[in-house]
């Protein structure tokens, strides 16, 4: 599964990161996997949220079959 990255993460790591996710997972698992691959950005990842299908994910379990798109949302700063 290709996970989209933005902002400082996209600039440092690239526009996506490739993860293998189990059939069921939590948003936090996605962040943990990326942290393992890119420990230098643990600090930013700890401040980030996960979006599934263009909606902020909550604490619930997510079925991989329901997922079209996953993105990591670092702290936003528009305006």
């Amino acid at each position, binding site marked *: 599964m290709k996970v989209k990255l*933005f902002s*400082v993460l996209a600039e440092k790591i690239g526009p996506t990161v490739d993860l293998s996710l189990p059939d069921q997972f939590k948003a936090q698992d996605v962040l943990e996997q990326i942290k393992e691959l890119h420990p230098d950005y643990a600090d930013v990842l700890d401040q980030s949220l996960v*979006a599934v299908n263009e909606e902020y994910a909550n604490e619930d379990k997510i079925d991989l079959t329901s997922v079209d798109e996953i993105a990591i*949302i670092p*702290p*936003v*700063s*528009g*305006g």
Partner: protein
Amino acid sequence: MSLIKIVDKPIDVDSLTKSLIHNEYGGIDTFLGTVRQYTGEIETEKIEYSTYKMMAEKEMQKLADSVLAQGMDVVMVHRVGELQLGDVAVFIGVAAPHRAEAFENCQMLIDRLKKTVPIWKKEYDKDKIRWGGLE
């Protein structure tokens, strides 16, 4: 007429403002966020805004819907790309029958946009580059 959009060109403040004038509304509040030169001692030279466009427009639409549902008109436009000092980064406008609602909702919309809409700034300051929002 309600317009919710991320753009990569200069924001046409005049036509957006005029789009909020309707015979049924007496009060229009607009907010413009522009690129500021100084933040305390820090001097900014330019800002690059990036976005997760599809999601950002969805999140902006959700915010707008809560105001539209109350019978007001709403415009929310955010610009991305490279912006210079004084450039308008965001335009929020609310037209309402009465002014108190216009002010209240316009301020609510910009406050929430800054908290939930996936837009990021990379600030080129004289001393270094800063990524907005990071602790």
